[in-house]
């Protein structure tokens, strides 16, 4: 026995992070493998992941393979967008990730690791790393399998969509993994809350409300999926968008988050989940367990207690501060896109007594903007259909009053025309050239009064100009027809998109960003202060001093009691 034990004492021990990380990593990897493959309960979820594979063959066979490739793969995109990213990936990662710490804290096997020289934050990191090694690849590969089932029947068209979903599945399971790992530490039985979160929170909120979906993770994942890689090209968009499918309606009606927002939100969710998981594993509470001022060490001790929170909020505030402040700077471009439908026609089809609107008259489309002083506006404009017409179209920025006057004048023209048209009993079209001539004169006048304008090329090439607002005021951005050939009566579209760069409101946000950054730095500084100043030797000395004082108090009180007894004896008995 002694011999064996003395052998054990021979081993040299090196406590560096690579050996620790390697051992825990291998341990957790083998555990995750056991859970994913060998556990029968997990196979319910594995089956759920692989279930959509049957969709491709079923749809192809049910429709006798008569669907066009676009419709066929639009269905594929719907299954991925709503089924996979709305439900299946959250559900699967919820099961795996929330069980990672939960079963160990419940049966207390975590003890075997936490009695070893590892920091608890390292445990979180390594556990998350082992999760990242297997689960995202697993989910991404299953998305590939679903594409394969469609591709066999659809000739492997639209492979960009599959690639896009593959990448999104990686990112989704990375983000959900961190979040659910934290949830698993938060609740004793996280599956119930997880199911609530996935079905009610993530699925219902994200699907049925356009405002509330901002507080779901699915919203940011979906924003990432429909992110447009070619913002200046109206003919290209995210490869998963097919006309009228779920991704399409989300992209145009769901008000998706922009690139900066979703990338930061997703990264912050991961970081904050991990640090909060750490504080949870460490048992930190923001509430002071007992009055900090009344114990030796005082506030220094309290700071030590909440160190993980200090670090969490330090990181959160520094990132948010940097993003709101220095990264976005004092100027941030807002992009705004709209379309004008231009359709000047002979037949006056509005109410006889009513004044015709711009769309009734069809010569212009306008959008109202309020610009602040020194706002810089870059207008991109293009004509988007009817390639062979000889009209002249201008896109211009004009002050509200001038354009309103112009509209009133043209309304008089159009109403007179309508009157003449109906009174001439079938020969109304004779008045049409007259209307166009008088309108064109007015239009060219108002074009002269515009603040800035550009002639749109007939071959649909994009045009642009830049304008700086001289004063705060209301402006119209207008696409207007200035010359019109009555022999061609095509309708056509003019797309306008504006990049507005202003600095009035940005300065407040910029300052707020720096304030957040400062708060973050201060919180981080406090945690470093607590780390640097706390010393156990001081604490022991304080306690020993307390004990010494307490015992000397007892002695002195005993002594005084003795003295008083002695005094009592010395008091002479009262004389009668």
């Amino acid at each position, binding site marked *: 026995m002694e011999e064996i034990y003395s052998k054990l004492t021979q081993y040299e021990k090196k406590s560096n992070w690579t050996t620790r990380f390697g051992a825990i990593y291998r341990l957790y990897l083998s555990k995750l493998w056991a859970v994913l493959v060998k556990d029968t309960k997990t196979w319910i979820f594995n089956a759920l992941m692989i279930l959509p594979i049957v969709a491709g063959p079923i749809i192809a066979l049910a429709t006798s393979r008569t669907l066009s490739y676009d419709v066929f793969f639009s269905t594929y995109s719907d299954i991925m967008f709503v089924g996979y990213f709305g439900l299946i990936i959250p559900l699967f990662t919820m099961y795996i990730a929330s069980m990672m710490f939960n079963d160990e804290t419940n049966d207390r096997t975590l003890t075997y690791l936490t009695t*070893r020289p590892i920091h608890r934050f390292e445990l979180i990191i390594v556990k998350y790393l082992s999760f990242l090694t297997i689960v995202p690849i697993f989910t991404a590969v299953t998305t590939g399998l679903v594409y394969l089932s469609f591709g066999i029947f659809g000739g492997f068209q639209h492979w960009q969509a599959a690639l896009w979903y593959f990448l999104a599945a990686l990112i989704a399971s990375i983000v959900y993994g961190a979040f659910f790992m934290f949830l698993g530490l938060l609740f004793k039985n996280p599956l119930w809350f997880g199911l609530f979160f996935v079905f009610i929170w993530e699925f219902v909120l994200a699907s049925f409300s356009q405002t509330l979906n901002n507080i779901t993770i699915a919203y940011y994942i979906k924003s990432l999926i429909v992110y447009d890689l070619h913002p200046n090209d109206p003919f290209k968009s995210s490869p998963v968008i097919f006309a009228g499918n779920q991704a399409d309606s989300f992209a145009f009606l769901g008000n998706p988050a922009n690139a900066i927002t979703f990338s930061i939100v997703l990264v912050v969710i991961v970081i904050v989940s991990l640090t909060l998981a750490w504080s949870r594993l460490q048992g930190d509470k923001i509430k002071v367990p007992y009055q900090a001022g009344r114990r030796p060490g005082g506030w220094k001790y309290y700071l030590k207690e909440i160190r993980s929170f200090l670090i969490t909020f330090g990181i959160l505030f520094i990132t948010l501060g940097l993003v709101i402040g220095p990264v976005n700077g004092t100027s941030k471009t807002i992009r705004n896109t709209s379309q004008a439908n231009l359709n000047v026609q002979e037949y006056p089809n509005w109410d006889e007594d009513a004044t015709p609107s711009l769309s009734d008259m069809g010569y212009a489309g306008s959008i109202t903007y309020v610009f602040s002083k020194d706002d810089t506006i870059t207008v991109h404009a293009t004509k988007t259909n009817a390639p062979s017409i000889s009209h002249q179209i201008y896109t211009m920025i004009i002050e509200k009053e001038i354009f309103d006057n112009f509209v009133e004048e043209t309304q008089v023209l159009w109403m007179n025309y309508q009157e003449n048209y109906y009174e001439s009993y079938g020969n109304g079209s004779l008045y049409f050239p007259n209307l166009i001539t008088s309108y064109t004169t007015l239009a060219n006048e108002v074009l002269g009064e515009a603040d800035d304008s550009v002639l749109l090329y007939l071959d649909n090439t994009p045009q642009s100009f830049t304008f700086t607002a001289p004063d705060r005021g209301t402006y119209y951005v207008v696409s207007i027809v200035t010359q019109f050939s009555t022999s061609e009566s095509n309708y056509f579209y003019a797309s306008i998109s504006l990049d507005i760069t202003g600095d009035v409101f940005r300065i407040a946000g910029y300052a707020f960003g720096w304030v957040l950054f400062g708060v973050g730095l201060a919180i981080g500084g406090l945690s470093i202060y607590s780390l640097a100043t706390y010393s156990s030797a001081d604490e022991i000395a304080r306690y020993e001093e307390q004990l010494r004082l307490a015992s000397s108090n007892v002695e002195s009180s005993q002594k005084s009691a003795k003295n008083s007894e002695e005094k009592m004896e010395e008091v002479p008995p009262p004389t009668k």
Partner: protein
Amino acid sequence: MKSYFIETYDLNKWYKEVMALNKLTIKVDRGIVGLLGPNGAGKSTFLNIATAQLRQSSGEIYLEGQEVWNNPGILKNIGFCPEQEKLFEWMTGRKFVRELAQISGIPREAANQAAIEAIELVGLQDAMDRPIKGYSKGMRQRIKLAQALVHDPQILFLDEPLQSTDPIVRRELVTLIQKLGREFGKDILISSHILHEVERVTSNILLVYAGRAIAQGNLSVIRDLMDKFPHTIRIKTPQRKELAQILFDYDYILSIELDHLTDDYMSIRTKKPDEFYQMITKIAIESNIAISEMTSPDANLESVFSYLTRRW
């Protein structure tokens, strides 16, 4: 070097309304110390706090003069054999000990050899390549001890290390713990709710009751008090009738009761439990009776403790 390795000051721990530790201010001597108290006295809570598994509600605890919580540096010198029976079920015993040895800093190449030696030390080498899933209670107890020893720590915390082991293994483990303490100079805190178990390992005990330390020091005085009370021992054996016949001959056995709910349990009451424990191993070997479990119900000890607390 100080003469104690643990010091606590006003250590409190409460779970909602239940007070598990109540203003515990103690200094635990070096060498082997038995932490003795009935179930629910706060032994496990204390060991969990001392090994940084739990955080105290208030007060301080220092190990070798360093704070325990959130200080992984000191865990290098600690080995902990926890109370719970669950282990990493999907691994084999050898792999389990090997990975834990590596986390404690033994290089990868040496860890396997160290794991085998530690398992040999607790006498489990036959089962070391089987998955832990299939281990019995006693085997689990021994593999837990192996993982606590494998990195040769200076301080050992053993939470009920002898429970649910059979008498022969129990004797081996007692010898092992004694040797570690006496020959290798380890500081060992061993908790138990059975006085006679602890007594065979050490005479220096720390008596805990209702979250308070009520006595610390040599065992002999306390044992005299406790021996005045009959002691109940529950034995599990397939040949309980044969064993009962043998035991009737000893005069310090007060009564023998066969459990009528199960086929293999029996309870005996004795005035001299320490003599009984010495004798029972001999009987088991001589008359070839397999004793698979021996436990001492708590109610018995609790009455003694309440008696002890009443007097002090």
